[in-house]
């Protein structure tokens, strides 16, 4: 009887001792959570507040992105591509240089536009205020947004006039910087490296097929396409080419890539008139030695920082 009583007290004591750090941790995380819940966003005249988006996040987003924003929602196993892990603070669609945080407006636009060829729909049914609140909520998951400022948006020079020379020059850029290695010589996403591509979570990822899509991952306009290869798609093997391609050349590349897309366009018509053939990587170089592509490994990972509760390292 006495032994039994002793055992009970011992177990109770052990439980209490074990519970102390748990309670303390819970208090810390609750404090942190409350602090981070004060996160705001500012898009034009709209100011978003994370706390105001809690209900919308739970209603619309949590099934994929998870309660903790770590992309580990209940649908995680079934989705491809996988949902974004907000805790990392790494985003594909930015107007800012590679490795930097996106602006609030970048996230605001991504929510409305959705991500083509993924399960992320266009949430353009939301009010602007709802979207602004959700931007703040997305930011609150990552310590990066606590500690860093967004990058400075890149400058996009005015779009020049489309000419045959530019389309042709764009193809040369495509060849020179070896876009074909991933996207294929015809831009069908079937280059020699395509099958080896992985994202920053080491998950297989497809190269973009220009012939299938009228929309890009991060927009539909020429400016959006310009931004994609000058800022890179962080978290994917698509690097930023801003150090390797001059702005004028970037526009040439835009025009050439437009000529590959399925819809009718001036670029496509020019390419047809020129009789452009797919690039031939084995052809003797008519130019000075090819520019080496920038690092093709996953782009900069965020600096280590405190993660929100329960997030994965």
């Amino acid at each position, binding site marked *: 009887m006495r032994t039994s009583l002793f055992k009970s007290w011992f177990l109770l004591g052990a439980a209490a001792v074990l519970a102390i750090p748990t309670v303390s941790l819970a208090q810390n995380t609750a404090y942190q959570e409350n602090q981070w819940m004060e996160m705001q966003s500012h898009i034009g005249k709209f100011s978003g507040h994370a706390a105001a988006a809690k*209900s*919308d996040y*739970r*209603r*619309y987003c*949590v*099934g*994929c992105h998870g*309660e903790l924003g770590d992309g580990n929602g*209940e*649908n995680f196993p*079934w*989705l491809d591509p996988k949902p974004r892990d907000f805790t990392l603070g790494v985003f594909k669609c930015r107007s800012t240089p590679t490795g930097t945080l996106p602006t609030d407006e970048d996230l605001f636009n991504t929510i409305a536009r*959705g*991500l*083509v*060829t*993924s*399960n*992320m*729909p*266009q*949430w*353009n*049914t*939301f*009010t*602007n*205020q*709802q979207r602004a609140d959700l931007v703040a909520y997305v930011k609150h998951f990552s310590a990066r947004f606590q500690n860093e400022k967004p990058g400075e948006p890149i400058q996009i020079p005015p779009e020049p006039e489309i000419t045959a020379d530019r389309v042709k020059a764009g193809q040369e850029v495509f060849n020179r910087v070896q876009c074909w290695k991933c996207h294929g010589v015809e831009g069908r996403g079937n280059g020699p490296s395509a099958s080896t591509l992985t994202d920053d979570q080491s998950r297989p990822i497809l190269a973009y097929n220009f012939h*299938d*899509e009228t*929309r890009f991952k991060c927009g539909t306009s020429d400016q959006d396409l310009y931004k994609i290869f000058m800022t890179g798609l962080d978290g994917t093997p698509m690097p930023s080419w801003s150090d390797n391609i001059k702005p004028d050349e970037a526009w040439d590349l835009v025009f050439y890539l437009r000529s590959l897309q399925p819809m009718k366009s001036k670029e496509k018509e020019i390419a047809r008139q020129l009789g452009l053939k797919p690039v031939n990587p084995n052809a003797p170089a008519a130019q000075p030695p090819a520019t080496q592509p920038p690092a093709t490994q996953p782009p900069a990972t965020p600096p280590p920082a405190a993660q929100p509760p329960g997030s994965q390292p």
Partner: protein
Amino acid sequence: MRMGTQFLRGHKPSYLSVALIVFFLVLSGSQPASALPAFARKYGLRCSACHESWPMLNYFGQKFKDNGYQLMNDRDAPIWQNPSYWPVTFRIVPIWHRVSTGKVAVDTASGGTTEQRITSSGFDISGLDFHTGGTLEKNFSFYVLPSSDNTASFHFETVMARLDNLFGSPWLNIKLGKFELDNLLSEKRILTLTGNGGIYQLYHFIPVGDGNIFGQIGDNQLGLELMGHSANDRTRYSASLLSSSDGQPGLIYGANSYSGFFTASQAFDVGKLGVDRIGAYAMIGQAPTRWLTSGTSPLGGSGIGNKSYHREGFVGLFYFGPHVDLQVVTQHGWDNAWFGQGYGDLVDGVVTGNNTPGTTLPVGSRAPTWNGVLVEPHYVYSPQLIFVGRYETIRMSQQATPGTPSNLGNISTYTIGYRYNPFMTSRAGFAWHNEYNWLHQDGTSPSGNNINTSELLLGFDFDF
């Protein structure tokens, strides 16, 4: 009050009350409902993404539907699904309900009749729906819904195929088959289940003695619909050409009678309140009043002598922040005097009135007209719990026959209830449903008295 106190003092908590408390605690303590789980399974979205509360759509769900059950992310075609994916969902509701109907004609022991209230209660089931819908290919969508009553007698509630985004434009979508009219406040997605509260009275109202069954905007209709919307679904329109058959297949009514249903609406971003929508609708049509006969039996599909009818009204979907919204529908209805005198329908294949050559209307016959409104507020406590209320009233403004009491057939009905979804996933839906409805209709008992009917319902509404 004293009685209550005594009751409390005199009774310790019974096993039943403890069990009930535990039951509700289990319900309320469950982890953090689905809709057409076939869509949820396909896209991995929870039901709450498309439904304010299943099955009522929210704005995003309406856009998904308007896009032909597509998210428009270039992953809509079935080729992107696992080959074993099969877009089928079933829905059924086991219930307990108590129905009380006043002024029912009852035989007396002396051989006469009297009117008395009949109240019955017990366990029951609803009909069964098998929903199957989705895309056959990008921009080719379909919906087929075999539906039964609670004796498993099936019919096709919906059978339609749709061509979406013709010429790459969301403004051009064509649907052919049997489908729900483009009612902004959808009766097929109603949040209530009782006999009288589970429909919108306004969508089915027929004046007493009227023979026009063809203007029921709540019934799925056979026809062709052209529908369009802006990219973000703020602006919508639809125009349908319908057979005047009230959705019944087999061309059993008119030889050449058609109706049209038209809607247009515009939504507005009202900041923190949400997105509000206002719109208008009209159903305008003709339906037969005369049938050729063979051996006095009417010949199906021979209906001629078309007479006209119309229904029109406004719709408003008003949101007041994330928790409260108010849905409003008005209606003005008008039937030709022939309908008002009972011509129009074949009841069980028998002509109630046949407008054969030489038939004349009773002296003074007029076109019956009426006005109605329904107001349905919702309080969305969370995506898992919604409270619903509804008030509907329909008032006759002109009876078909002079001398008829002006209020004959007027309806007033109240409904309150709530639906609680104890879990929320993208695989299945389950709602604990509790509802009460009360309906009053003027002068329609056998002896011309007013009828009051009420129903209390509790049930498990589930689909998978």
